[in-house]
């Protein structure tokens, strides 16, 4: 479900030439949106897109997330 915040962010992303977007999870109010910045010379880069979205609403948080090929990992910590 595309809520008002999703719609506002999508409109801004479209204006800045984003290549695509996806509402994460169940949708509805709140939650999050993931976008792919455009690759053309006229589209905004990811950092510029992030700045523009952050400026739309001070209550929003923009995250820098990157693909993770690995799942859960467990490692030992040194004894203190």
């Amino acid at each position: 479900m595309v809520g008002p915040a999703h719609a506002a962010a999508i409109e801004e992303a479209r204006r800045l030439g984003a290549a695509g977007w996806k509402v994460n999870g169940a949708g509805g109010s709140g939650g999050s949106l993931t976008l792919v910045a455009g690759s053309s010379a006229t589209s905004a880069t990811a950092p510029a897109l992030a700045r523009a979205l952050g400026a739309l609403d001070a209550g929003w948080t923009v995250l820098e997330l990157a693909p993770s090929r690995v799942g859960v990992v467990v490692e030992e910590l040194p004894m203190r």
Partner: protein
Amino acid sequence: MLRVVPSRPYAVRATAPVRVADVGGWTDTWFGGPGRVCHLAVGPGVEVRARRTNRTGGAPSVVLESTALDPPVTVTQTADGRWAGGSSVRHLMLEEAVCEVLEGVPADEVGRVEVVIGSQVPPGASLGTSAAVVVSLLAALDTLLAGGRRTPEELAVLAHRVETVRARREAGVQDQWAAAVGGASLLEVDPYPTVRRTPIPLSDAVVAELGQRLVTVVFAPHDSSAVHREVIGAHCPRRWLDTRRGVTRASRDRRAGPDGVGRAPRCRHRPMGRVAAGMHQLAAGAS
């Protein structure tokens, strides 16, 4: 799963990714299947640190701390030998995850354990953070206390069971799988909650490009389980739900394997026609 730990470690750190782009969501639920979903695991996600303490005396216990847990959550052994937490329903899922591991471990092996949970992602961001926390918590305690024999796939199944059966929350299966195995996957869910996973290869170029071009914006906290309940209540006829719950229960009991043995019958009254518009709009989230 990568494990770099001795047989009886003093302290461990478990990390797990969250996920974005959960395409086909809702079909991985007990009421929306049979399901086909895919997703992309992303990080940094969550981190769970667990360590044995030197404190002596008192009942064996596991104490969970996090900026979101105030006061800390404590799971202790009761006089009748059961493990139980004492916090509100809000943290039931974490308590149940701890109990799930402790129930297979002798109490004198547990002693006192402190756990610190951290996340780079705000709670309620619709990124599968809760599932990633439960997977990491199970993995950390399993390694610290139970020999670390569980595979990532087993942790995914266990984490989903903790959330839906022990903590009685509504949830699909894909968040737990994304956190446990990472990468991109196609998950076929039939019968629920049985999962057949096909990894989707990600080339170095794709990973690098997505790393440069992905932007995720979080709007406000969101309760996925509450949205599930809202959809179920609004769109699914009670008679159909009762039938479906019976099918799901039977399926879970049979624990069908990848060969399809124990396949649950389909409900002929699955209300996809009437519900499709609402559910699929919610499911896809695409525009």
